[in-house]
């Protein structure tokens, strides 16, 4: 709407800039316990609110329903059910992946939550909502205390 406008695209000027943003993200008390148990014991830890009958996976230090603090951690099975899945073709920068990735939300047994993870040892056409899957752990010396200490979930 300006009185004058640039009409020659060759004259359009830009300043290229980047925001370099590096952070450390604190896993927190609950995240720390979860990842150490995963790395050292191949265990999934959850927290539970008895009052609301909710088991939190991943574990949290508070119940978001009644807003009270949760103090005790419990082990839950490292298996569950595919609640939804997708076959994804692009990486985080929007470039095509060399191989598509199968990701799912796995509802972990005996909890009200779950994990978003890869599904392996399966053909895409065999994927089904409701299928039972179980965690396959990375070799112990390769584990880093991260979500990838589980390699993927495979059909149970």
């Amino acid at each position: 709407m300006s009185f004058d406008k640039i009409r020659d695209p060759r004259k359009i000027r830009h300043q290229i800039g980047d925001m370099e943003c590096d952070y450390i993200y604190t896993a927190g008390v609950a995240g720390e316990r979860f990842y150490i148990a995963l790395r050292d014991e191949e265990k999934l830890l959850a927290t539970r609110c008895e009052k609301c009958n909710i088991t939190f996976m991943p574990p949290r230090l508070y119940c978001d329903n009644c807003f009270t603090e949760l103090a005790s951690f419990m082990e839950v099975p490292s298996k569950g059910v595919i609640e939804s899945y997708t076959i994804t073709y692009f990486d985080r920068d929007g470039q095509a992946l060399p191989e598509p990735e199968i990701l799912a939300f796995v509802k972990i047994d005996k909890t009200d939550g779950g994990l978003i993870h890869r599904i392996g040892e399966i053909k895409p056409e065999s994927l089904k909502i409701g299928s039972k899957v179980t965690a396959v752990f990375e070799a112990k010396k390769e584990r880093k205390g991260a979500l990838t200490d589980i390699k993927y979930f495979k059909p149970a």
Partner: protein
Amino acid sequence: MTVAIIGIGCTSFNSVTAEVSFKEQMFEAAVKAYADAGVNAREDIGSFLTAAEDYWEGYSIFDEFVPDQLGAVLRSVCTIGGDGLLALANGTMQIETGLFDVVAIEAHSKASDMLTFDGILTHALDPVYNRAFNVHPYFIAGLEMQRYLHETKTTREQCAAVVVKNKRNAMDNPLAAFPADMTVDEVINSTMVSHPLTQRDISPLADGMIVIVLASEKKAKELSDHPIWIKGLGWCSDTPWLEARDWGAAGYTNLARDRAYKRADIKNPRKEFDFAEVDDYFSYKELQHLEALQLCEPGKAGKLAEAGEFNRDGAFPVNVSGGRLGAGNLLEGSALQSVLECVYQLRGHAGKRQIKNAKTALAQSWRGVPTASGCVAVLSNEN
């Protein structure tokens, strides 16, 4: 409620706008809105609100980059970290407190300035649990869509019908960035992004700025020949945890809907609204949102969309503007694009796409993946 929209102004929406800065674009939208409202920015407007998000803009503390181009230097200004409807809600409340008679709100997108949209979106994922895999964050939409199709027996074709409708609607919206005469097959056979979500199921990013002027009842009657009244408002956020969500439905809409409908005394939404502008960031989202807004029975939106029910000439027109899919994804600005269309229609200024005798309209927003936040507004040309 006692607040009305008395002025609207915007730029056209475009895939790139390299020749103008975001400040110049915002200035254009503001000048148009203030002229439409018949107000002087420096004398009549008490407060200014912008809906913005630093990462979309590429500025730290973006709030500070707002005042000059809106006529808001040395005035009351604040930025809302949410979509445009949340700015509308907060502007309305500022007037209802009695602090101000006239408030200007703004929301926008300068998406073409972002060279790394995908990377920025990845940074919206939880770093401790959701960033382990090198996949595009639209995988979340793939998971949502798969679950929604599974639960409701909606088909990919029915989702594609939404894309076809909205892009066709955009052909009669001179502001729209992505009008097209597309077929269901073209949508379904487009590049697979995250099965079952294809490239054409996703709204393409566009640049555009929208400014809206709000006024108290007294001021609105004094200044405007066609005030559009804000009858009801609501907003809501579900848990941010992907691991704790309902993957098949848009749960964040429920409380926003209940609050807005209650305030506006809406008992039978399908009968009482003449049309709706709802969020369609992804094709299936329009269907989920129509169901959450109780504009059709749960699980039935896809069938109805396929049958033409939500077409411009259908029984209940939805996204006559073209929505995000047709007008362009304006990020936090799309929520105000919905309001803009409601105002055009309720004033009777929508030209070729005018819905006859439109009196009451619904605008609904969602902030896109990975968020679970959205707003609802009820608008009417009758006080």
